[in-house]
């Protein structure tokens, strides 16, 4: 009846990145792998990931840890940075998404890495699951799983960051070694 009404939501995609993403094959174990850490510019994000890196390096005798910080919290990491991860790392941990735009873009980072064949896990605070999930749906990956840590992260002390990182390790390891889509997806 109202087919002549223009749908205002229909526009061109910005790129072809939003096709159904293919998730990378998981390794059986993290032992001896090369880990990438993709931090955003939010307070404590780098420190959080650094703690994650240290924990994983110790537990799994990682070959090396490559830490990088993307310049813009809103957008996905620049292509050269992504290429470097793809070139030099076997797995990547990205985060910490603790705001509206950065949680969404962290999920987008994770999915881009997956498409590049790198198993990735994204860390978001539990306050921003809605935007993280919305991004996953938008990118054709409803049910995409990521690791949550309680919100906020920005006000944590060094000790608090350490404890949170330790608490997140089991979920990070699970998502890096098992399929990252929810069973229902």
């Amino acid at each position, binding site marked *: 009846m109202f087919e002549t009404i223009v749908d205002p939501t229909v*526009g061109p995609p910005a790129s072809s990145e939003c096709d159904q993403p293919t998730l990378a094959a998981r390794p059986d174990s993290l032992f001896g792998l090369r880990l990438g850490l993709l931090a955003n510019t939010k307070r404590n994000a780098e420190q959080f990931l650094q703690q994650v890196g240290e924990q994983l390096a110790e537990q799994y005798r990682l070959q090396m840890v490559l830490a990088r910080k993307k310049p813009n919290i*809103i957008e996905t990491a620049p292509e050269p940075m992504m290429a470097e991860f793809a070139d030099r790392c076997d797995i990547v941990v990205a985060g910490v998404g603790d705001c*509206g735009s950065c949680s969404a873009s962290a999920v987008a980072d994770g999915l881009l890495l997956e498409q590049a064949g790198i198993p990735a896990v994204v860390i978001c605070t539990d306050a921003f699951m809605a*935007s993280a999930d919305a991004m996953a749906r938008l990118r054709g990956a409803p049910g995409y799983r990521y690791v949550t840590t309680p919100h906020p992260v920005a006000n944590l002390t060094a000790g608090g960051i350490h404890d949170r990182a330790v608490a997140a390790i089991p979920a990070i390891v699970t998502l890096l070694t098992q399929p990252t889509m929810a069973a229902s997806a």
Partner: protein
Amino acid sequence: MTAPVTDPVAHAKAAIEYCYEQGWTDGLPVVPATIADVETFVATTGRDAAEIIGSQQHLGRSITVAQAAANAIMAGCKPEYFPVVLAAWHVLNLERGSRGAWQSTSGPAPLIVVNGGVRSRLGINYQGGVFGPGFRPNATIARAIGLIVRNGYGIRPQQLDQATQGLPGRWSICIGENEELSPWEPLSVVGGAAPGADAVSAMLIRTCEYVDNRSTDVAEAVLRDLAGRHGPARRCPSPGLTPDRTELAYPAQAHCPREKWSSDGGDLTRRQGRARHRRRTQHWQRHRAGPVQVWRQGRLQRRRRGSDQGMHRPDRAERRRGNGRAR
């Protein structure tokens, strides 16, 4: 809604309801847009309907002129408003941090300021009650921006939009500058436009406050009230958004302390302020705005009696209150 509707009013209401059901509205009724409407709007601009005027790389979404037109129609714009909508959209896209602003926890609102004869031609209010309500172009131009963000980018509250509270008046703040009663040159001229040219400026704001002092003719009293409302220039917690302030003065306020209160903070900073402003406002961006006036850089600057140059130095009481302190 499935039964044939013969009553045109019922039909119109059903069309509005249909738009609600699609999730296309900001909560208020929208005007359904047709292809013909979109063509009419696009024709006012002389631009290609398929031209991309904004992208959110991480969302994989882009906005075309035609899509902006559809949303402007839905917002209630007349075709002749559409160039102003596009200009405001363009300026907002230049604002540092604007790409993430629509999803930000801070939920900032665009402040859109229109200069030039276009105000009168379109009926954009630049006088009493300038923030509205009651004036179609003011209300619908600002609303169009909100619908473009919502429908074009798919950024909706509680989903990709993570505003914790939002802002009263978000998507409804579009004003004209009262150039005729202003003692200062128009915002657009400060931004680099020719005097009298039609121009749109915009910035993102996170709050709004009314400061009232109608019982003085002393510049310091007005400035002190303004400074007292603000406190020290805050460090902005989010790297993408600027902590600049915009002061709007009503005509009596602007004229009252005229000999001591100049629009750009005094001769000392005039030249450097302008140079900086020009750099930062190349395409009409922000910064001084208002029915009449603004104030610069979150910093209390004024001319002193007996010394026509010089920055204000806060006295001890002001320092204690944190007033007048530059960042």
